[in-house]
């Protein structure tokens, strides 16, 4: 909550809803979480707990998610530059 209030004080012209939206995007597209799951997928495959097919399928899903997340973050960064 402190973050929200600070952000509103620093940038009062940014709408409250806009900040909530940005935070939701950051939460939804957490790059580190996706990268961690990619590594865990690989680990489970190496341990023999995931078949080649399961591994490949999950890998391609996560890579697509990562790509989407990177684009969302790019979008947010672009908007931050506009606001500055």
């Amino acid at each position, binding site marked *: 909550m402190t973050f929200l209030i600070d952000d509103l004080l620093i940038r009062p012209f940014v709408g409250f809803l806009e900040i909530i939206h940005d935070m939701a995007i950051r939460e939804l597209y957490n790059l580190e979480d996706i*990268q*961690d*799951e990619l*590594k*865990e997928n690989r*680990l489970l495959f*190496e*341990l023999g*707990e995931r078949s080649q097919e399961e591994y490949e399928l999950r890998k391609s899903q996560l890579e697509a998610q990562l790509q989407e997340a990177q684009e969302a973050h790019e979008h947010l960064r672009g908007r931050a530059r506009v606001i500055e």
Partner: protein
Amino acid sequence: MNETKWYVYGIVEAEPLRMDVSGVAGAEEVTAVEHQQIAALVSEIETMNPDRSEANVRAHNQVLKQAMDQGCDGTVVPMQFGMVFETKNTIENVLRHGRRAFVQALEQTEGMIELGVKIIAHSDASVDRAAIVASVEDELDRSSETVAQNRMFSDRLLINRSYLVERSNREALDAGIDRLRDRHEDVTIQYSGPWPPYNFVDIQIGASQ
């Protein structure tokens, strides 16, 4: 338009070098771009953004391992995957401006290799993490120069560490791993390497690429 770009794998002490490789983005050759006794290991490629595929990342690592084995006095300061420069001149500028940091990193890792240790709990097991950590430190720390704690990317991971080890001390670490396997049969131990010292050099290249 397919202009040549320059992919950099790592930095070594300068010496004439040419290696046949299966490199990043289909590169088949690695050469050295030298500047004042240090050199960048480079391949000519056709893109500024090589695909971050498993094959390319493996190729990057394989080239560095080959360089460690074939020459370069066994010491290579690795670059992160994806460092591409527009011109050879830019690489020479990077070597010029980063010379002090590169030389320091080469000195700090001279004759050293990196070895990786992951310890993973079995899927249905309850394991005493503190006891595992204590015995890992007991068995491995004394054979290594430095230890890096890596990201715990899975709940199943009990240990994810990298060890910087003198080449001549490799067998001592191997023996420590064997003893750990005997002491802890309820976990899986992944022991990997030798790697270039990825986790022990931290040089940020800020030059315009």
